[in-house]
């Protein structure tokens, strides 16, 4: 059936089965391919999006449960006051290697800084622990979050 979703502030419609995970609706039906598939079981964080501002694993959200919630994806972060700072820090420090996990990393980091503008190392670890980076760019992820929050980088 057709579902109307609010993605990055715009109403979009998708004619899919209700049990289809939001991840696949975003990627294959709506063309927001910045959100990535990594594991399908909420173990890697590559598919992280914001649902009403909260970081969520879109591979675990059936589209029928989204309702009127506001969904934000990496494609919407340039218009997000915190997201754009995070993106800038990620670019300045050249965090990525392959880059595949980085959309999810940026979504989690943005959600963290939106609530906790000056996170401690422990808060960074806690907020980012669900996002795997196979290239292991963790040293730079930490530094970029510090930079985006205006704190001294370790």
């Amino acid at each position: 059936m057709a579902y109307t979703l609010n993605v990055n502030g715009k109403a979009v419609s998708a004619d899919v089965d209700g049990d289809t995970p939001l991840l696949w609706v975003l990627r294959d039906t709506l063309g927001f391919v910045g959100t990535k598939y990594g594991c399908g079981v909420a173990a890697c964080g590559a598919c992280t999006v914001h649902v009403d501002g909260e970081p969520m694993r879109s591979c675990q959200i059936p589209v029928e449960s989204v309702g009127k919630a506001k969904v934000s994806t990496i494609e919407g972060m340039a218009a997000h006051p915190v997201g754009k700072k995070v993106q800038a820090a990620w670019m300045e420090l050249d965090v990525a290697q392959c880059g595949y996990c980085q959309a999810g990393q940026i979504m989690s980091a943005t959600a963290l800084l939106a609530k906790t503008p000056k996170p401690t190392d422990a808060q960074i670890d806690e907020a980012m622990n669900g996002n795997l980076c196979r290239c292991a760019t963790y040293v730079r992820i930490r530094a970029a979050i510090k930079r985006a929050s205006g704190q001294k980088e370790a």
Partner: protein
Amino acid sequence: MTYHDLNANRREILTSVGAGGLTLAFSMASKAEAQDGGLKPLNAYVRLAPDGKVTIQAKNPEVGQGVRTMLPMLIAEELDVAWEDVVIETAPNDPKTYGRQFAGGSMATPMHWEELRRVGAVARAMLIQAAATAWNCGPGDCTTAPGEVIHTPSGKKRTYGSLALACASVTPPDPKSLTLKDPKAYRIIGKPKAQYDVAKIVTGQPLFGIDVRRPGMLYATYEKAPVFAAKVASADLEAAKSVKGVRKAFVVDGDPNAFAPGPGQIGQGLMPGVAVVADSWWAARKGRDKLNTKWADHPTSKQSSKLFAEQAKTLAAGKAQRTPRNDGDVDAALKASAKTVEAAYFYPFLSHANLEPQNCTAEYKDGKLEIWAPTQNPEPGRQLVAKTLGMKPEDITVHMVRGGGGFGRRLANDYMVEAAWIAREAGAPVKLLWTREDDMAHDHYRPAGFHFFRGGVDAAGNVTAWHDHFVSFGEGTGFSPSAGMGPTEFPARFVQNCRLEVSTMPLGVPTGPLRAPGSNALAFVMQSFIDELAHAANADPLAFQIKLLGDKDVVGEAPAAYAAGRMRGVLKAVGEMSGWANRGKLPKGEGMGVACYYSHLGYFAEVAHVACSPDGAVKVKKVWVAADVGSQIINPMGAMNQVQGSVIDGLSAALHQQITIDGGRAEQSNFTDYPLMRISEAPQVEVQFLKTNFPPTGLGEPALPPVIPALTNAIFAATGKRVRSLPVTPDMLKA
């Protein structure tokens, strides 16, 4: 050349660069020319636009190693353009023009350091000649500044863009006749540059194989047998087709034994399976869930990790099948040693676990195939598809697309062959995407291995005897892919009495190169056992390593030369960086370990500092790396990232990962039972590059191998417990 013998033929690669690489680079790339839209190609790599923008072709696949940025930097430097004016495009897969195009062996730097700088220098010389002709002067009266030719006597200037057309009538000079820049004058090389695609990455633009879309594209999933290469006995295709959105479901017989790289080895042919093709990938997956596939029995379905371990013990107790090295008299030397040590080591199978699961998009139309593949090895993929589908290679085009991690997995092209086969059968463009579970169950794993050591030291702390009986996988005299060890494996040649023996057992599990193949396992066992001997000799492990390396600068001859002087240099440096001399002051439960390893032409020494708690948990507090990869770090931004990532990657494998085989199949299926290190565990990694007078070499791999023994040697220093089997588990270390 297939990916299987990539390592074996490294010498050949190096030779071929010297011999013929340059001439190839200057033939015109017909495709680039046809698509140039008015821009003028100076050669196969460089096009100039009237506005001064310079388009440079990135010849090799990008999988996160930064090569798409680094190789064009070499051209841009000698061409003398501002980096901001450079536009990078992915080159077509065209080895006739570009030479071999692959991502492997950390070879991009050594293969291209000289060649691509000369490509840039030739383009610059042509621009100078064009300007000199226009000014009616000799080229010696001209020089360049970024993006412009300057007439030195008068100060007149012409932009590169304005000279682009005139260059068409200039004959390219012999690249070898040109003098390259003095490194002191570098404006781009040695300066930190962010990856060219960084903006696309952080804004989520389509970039990866999984992001490819074609008009009318369908989505496919492909179910294969858990026991490698088993055939389909039955599958309920009708049930799959009853799912909404499913267009086709069909059995692929496959021919897994085709194109084997060696006798008794697993082939590169198409694996049997069931394809489900649908309007969306989710529908294809739901269709697949209904297949209820039954698999035929397979001869390897009784193999297991447990049986391999038992077999290895039995083989080690008997006479070795082969003795690749036997220097001096090991048995006599052991008898005469002040102290002897015996130890058995093990490392497990590993999966590559690229975060982007294997995928490929293929479109078959009018007898021709077009393929978009996140491959590390496009041309062998094209040839394999041609052989498998019975097509001519010239009817197949492979586009290189960014891969979400490589680590050696994408040197194999199994997903490419599957996508091509399914697309032809489906009669529509198809994107094949493996599930994470498919990816972990159908890897070409880092092979497990067993080493049975005996060693001796004298009263003065010299290694007097070294004996390793390596039990690995293979048949006849061949090793399974990436399961070998050479006769010069360190410390061979540095110990007078040295015997290396090998026995192998057959394996039904596909294996292949994982980042720093061979070395990622051998470093652990060799450097751990050296540490054991150091402790037996009651010596400082770092001083013991330096002593073992002797006083010669180089031991052996190319291509197996070992620059002992370079290794001593990094060992001394890492000792200073880490405060090694003060390690005795660390609190109880903490310790430092050192290890060094030479691989992929790079010399690395690393120190790990760990804290171990009574419950067996290990925290890596910090790692120091001293690296010698020659005279020049081309892109310090990328170089640092590669080294830090390699170190954490190695720790991740050593502390968390193993693939176990039972019933002929891999038991792990996802990141829940095959974990990667997370940010909360990741240590700081301090890196120092020693600049030495050697040609620059690559950084995708060589930082990884030594961190594993640095970790386990540190655990010994902290706890007195010797880790001889990976991964490290809390059970091993409980107080």
